[in-house]
């Protein structure tokens, strides 16, 4: 592909273009200095952009009323995951009403592509994508999140309650 040039000698006059650009920069700078609230650029990380609470960021495992994990280890999220970043180990629960539960649930967050298929696949509202989107870490940080982090991290303030309740479903005759 070749660059299209305007014909004629006037096209070689670049100085007017440069001055126009410098003038625009100067005006914007002065406006921003006296009008910092309306400035588009943020002073990250002191000043953060607020995303909507519906933003689909880092995963959350929801809990039941008694605080235990809602997840039944059906592995539909792991099956749906296109990045293959969810690893679940299931086991038999001592309570026959629960029957199956995960003894380990790990999301390799560096592999995750935030597609949201896990959330869609989940039949019991056990995995959701929360509004957190900033999870930086230094070298040596564990980016493979386990149950402790996914369900009970400090930001969740004791866990997020699942919408699907077994006892209510049982009473409704389902």
């Amino acid at each position, binding site marked *: 592909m070749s660059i299209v040039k305007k014909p004629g000698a006037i096209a070689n006059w670049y100085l007017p273009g440069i001055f126009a650009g410098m003038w625009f920069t100067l005006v914007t700078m002065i406006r921003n200095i006296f009008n910092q609230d309306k400035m588009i650029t943020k002073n990250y990380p002191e000043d953060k952009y607020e995303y909507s609470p519906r933003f689909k960021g880092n995963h959350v495992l929801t809990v039941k009323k008694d605080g235990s994990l809602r997840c*039944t*280890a*059906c*592995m*539909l999220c792991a*099956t749906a995951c296109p990045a293959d970043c969810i690893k679940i180990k*299931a*086991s*038999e629960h001592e309570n*026959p*009403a629960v*029957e*199956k539960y995960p003894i380990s649930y790990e999301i390799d967050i560096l592999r995750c592509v935030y597609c949201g298929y896990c959330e869609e696949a989940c*039949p*019991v509202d056990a995995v959701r994508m929360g509004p957190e989107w900033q999870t930086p870490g230094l070298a040596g940080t564990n980016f493979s999140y386990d149950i402790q982090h996914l369900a009970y991290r400090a930001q969740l303030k004791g866990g997020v309650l699942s919408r699907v309740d077994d006892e209510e479903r*049982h009473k*409704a*005759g*389902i």
Partner: protein
Amino acid sequence: MPKCKINGQEVEVEAGTTIIEAFKKLDSEIAHYCYHPGLSVAGVCRLCMVEIEGNPRLQIACNTVVQDGMVINNNSEKVKETVKWGLDFHLINHPLDCPICDQAGECELQIQYMKFGQYDPEMAEPKVKKNKVVDLGSKIVLDSERCILCSRCVRFTEEVSKTNELGIFNRGDRSEIGTFDGKPLENDYAVNTVDICPVGALTSKDFRFRQRVWYLKNKETVCPGCSTGCNVKSYYNEEGLFRVKPRQNDEVNGYWMCDKGRDTYKFVNKENRLLEPKVGQSGQWDSQEVDGVMSVMSTKIDDAVKSAGSDKVALVLTGQYTSEEYASMLSYFVGHLKSKNVYHWVNNPESFDEFDGLLLRGDRNPNTKGLLNGLDQHGITAPWSDLETKLNAGDIEVLLVAGPEDPSVFPTLTEKVSLFSKAKNLFWMSAAKTEAADSATTKTWQIPLKTYAEKEGTFVNHKGIEQKIQPMVNIVDCAQTLSEVASALSGQKVDHLGSLVKDRKTNHFINHHGGGL
């Protein structure tokens, strides 16, 4: 022989064949739960409905015998409608358990529902709740809610295992499968009921919750548990084997296999395997490279043969290896070393000839017949007592033992190892990691071998039927087959990576575009 027409296709069947068998003969699909070719006809699920021309009402295909000139179809609107409503009746009290049900993925109810489902149920009443997670002994868990009362398991315990543990209790929508007075379902064939259960009502404790079935691949192989050689499918993924299920072969095992055979996947997995060659004695071991051990082995044998003759070298074989491996090992011994010092290690002489009347034989090796054939061909008749005498006299310089693949069927392993320890140098070749082998008191080299899941070959069963096994996974990379050992000993260089490179798929993308990405 009567001829009939099924969905427009002409088919000739033997007299007395039922319509469902004629469908199977044509490989034509027909919905069914209670019918099983290995069991009697019950006719309870009412799902195999077919329309027979001239007959005003639909008939069940499993209990109607084909008559000459019948015109049958199961794809008319009338049949589809009937199956749809029949299925809806099965699902009235079926719980929404699929996420935690082990059968999900191979469940007949799911399969039929995707085809004929009444996607919008019309039942307003709540579901009848029944017992869940009922413990039926050491092998099986029952979930009564999921059961659709096809009675396959009940018929199995009546007709095949003849133990009659299971029955259907109560009436109507409160009917439940159960055992009398909570007695456990403990017979040697109990897990077959899990296989034939079309839903997730009976699940195997051993496999329960360990994997979702859609993560597992399967390959057809032969059970190495005993000399019956049942035809099985092994289910595996890259971590190892997870379960074994029978497949049909009327000449060998019919549709079934015993529960002992279902354990034959365990010794293949990494935790029970010898992972690298090692040298040492009495619990003190150093790891070694395969090539190093092979050259030590070949020098030791050569030295012993040169200094004192080939009688100083002996080989012990068990019935756990393939015919091909026996052939190469024996031709090395007889052809190369000119020695007939080969002995057959019978692992359990007391119970060797037992038979439980159905499938399980006392000879717990898959290929005893193949070994005996090999020994016959080379005219080797030396009895076991010869080896014992020679070992006790200290006459054996180098002893090669192709030991157990599955150590659990070798009750006298420790005693045998202490007997073998009387040789000056012991080369213990085995797939299994055993305490017995680690306790050997003479200078011992342990060499890991491949199991039946990692190699191809032939097993000859007790009737003399030759059956092929095929490789599925590679669990221990440095493991050898006896054929590889034999060719290494006879001086041929074995390319350990050869098979790997051959199996690797070509990257067509790179080849076609003449370069990297």
